[in-house]
């Protein structure tokens, strides 16, 4: 293996992976804490027949979590292929 070229190459791979991690981590905070903790204010609105704050904590944020996990799997697999580090 070309070790020298690899070091810089792998550094960029890890930077990109970390960026994806932090992005999803930030959105995780939004769905886990920011939205649910404004439930009192959101409850003054209605959505699909639900008080919005209740709806988000019971359903909306959960959908968000599923989307984040699917997105992570797809995006990270793409990054792996871009840098040629996917498994054989």
């Amino acid at each position, binding site marked *: 293996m070309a070790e020298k070229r690899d070091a810089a190459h*792998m550094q960029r*791979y*890890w930077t990109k*992976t970390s960026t*994806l*991690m932090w992005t*999803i*981590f930030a959105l*995780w905070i939004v*769905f*886990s*804490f920011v939205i*649910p*903790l404004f*439930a*009192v204010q959101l*409850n003054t609105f209605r959505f*699909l*027949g*639900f*008080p919005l*704050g*209740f*709806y988000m*904590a*019971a*359903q909306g*944020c*959960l*959908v968000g*979590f*599923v989307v*984040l*996990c*699917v997105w*992570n*799997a797809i995006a*990270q*697999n793409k990054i*792996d292929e871009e840098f*040629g*580090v*996917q*498994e*054989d």
Partner: protein
Amino acid sequence: MADSKSAGGGFYGNLGKIYGGYAGGFIVFTLILAVLEQMGVPNKIIGYAFVVLTIGVYAYIGILSRTMDLSEYYVAGRKVPALYNGMATGADWMSAASFISMAGGIYLGGFNALGYVLGWTGGYVLVAILLAPYLRKFGQFTVPDFLGTRYEGNGARLCGVVVLFCASFTYIVAQCFGIGIITSRFLGIPFEVAIFVGLLGILVCSMLGGMRAVTWTQVAQYIILIIAYLVPVVWLSTKLYGIPIPELTYGRALDQIAQFEEKLGIVKHFTDAFTDAKGQFSWTEFNNFWALVLCLMIGTASLPHVLMRYFTTPSVREARTSVAWSIFFIFLLYFTAPAYASFAKLEVYQNVIGHPIASLPAWVQNWSQVGGLLTIKDANGDGIVQLSEFVINQDIVVLSMPEIAGLPFVVSGLVAAGGLAAALSTADGLLLAIANALSHDVYYKMVDPKASAGRRLIVARTLLIVVALIAAAVASTRPSGIIQMVAWAFSLAAAGLFAPLVLGIWWKRTTKIGAITGMISGFAVCLFYLVMTRYAPDTFKEMFGTNLWFGIRNISSALFGLPVAFVVTYVVSLMTPEPSQEMQDFVDSIRTPKGLVTAGG
């Protein structure tokens, strides 16, 4: 099946057909029982049929999957496809707490209990981005294996085993408790005996085939538990509003509940956020809400029985996909749970409160006999059930709701089978995590590194039985409610394991001493808070002049342990010499899907 598995191709090629046929078979079985019920077969026999037949199926899969191969026993041969690992993780994950107690918690607590729904789903995002793919790449047998390798030696490994044992054991006691409730109610035997009967169902499966048997049984258990959870809610949604999608219709149930609340003079509204018993906004409730969400989520990403499921996929890529499948399968139950709770609340307000006690059907009698979890006392002697006279424990709301709502008994049997599947599958996973840590990490890695494969498997199986028996014995003393015990388990795991796992992968500078001191101090603070506030509240008050720190309940004990673990690990790591180049190369090698894992330090 056992043969075709080892031969390869046959079993793995036909997974869809096998489990599709199995799901169909289960539906036909339920329909036959429904017809039999209409023909006059007594409820007792239907209850028996559900409990005995499903446990029989799990035992059968367990026996077919028996193995004497180490890799099959510990990590199911690393051949489990992402989709099926997702289902198995779903069953492994959703325990008696999710299935039996969570909707009951929402029934009683309203919005404030939605912290459980959020906390038990969102943690998978952390598993996906921080841990699963890297632990899969590391590719050993257990979570303490990782700690022992990354932090060079048996010190970190032993700390990991201690935390794993404390968390998983608390968790498994809660499952035995749930199994006891169901078998006691549906087989009509005393609670204390029922626990040990249910235990047999756990043992046949995990003991013979280890991870391989547990995996394929858990897939079967997921199918039953999700059908069982959805059927009564979909049924009620259709009955009440004509639309079979409860997630869309229970907004209307919430409106009706609000009308009843007004009529009955209830000040704590079901959908109001962060209210106390008087219906006023409370900062204590607000803080406890986010603290619980945080502890449950971090706990998700620290519990070894969940993390070790991602050791079983064929590749890193599949491990990632598998997390996405896991949360999808888990989500199906969790976003239905608030609907379940709302319908149960509405049915109680409509069919029980304000009705003559004499007119209540037999289910009241039947449930009153299970460990005092349901009581109706005619306090004012008017023969009518008043709101304050009807006391239902959160652990039986889900199980009794079909009867309260007047659905055929076959639905109750189905729900019981689902609850049993949830409790058994989690108990299996936990038992395996504990027994593997003790046999692999303690016995093989520390006591007798020359032990033969056969001997290691015998030790693993013996420990499995011993741990199971102790857990059942503790559960028969009814130490606490299911959901509290499970939340404690999450806090213990979060405080002890999250920092060393995450920092071990994401921060190369983490040193051996830093990680060990961090684990010990974080776990100790969490355990101290939990034990003192639970068992010695008076001493705690004397020491600190307050009942609870910042009013945070002990189910969120990790709120204090977590920051301690991170800070101590960070500071001590910076004070100790940088890890060796070999160790840094090792971290690099588990960060990259391609290539071999290097030896480490």
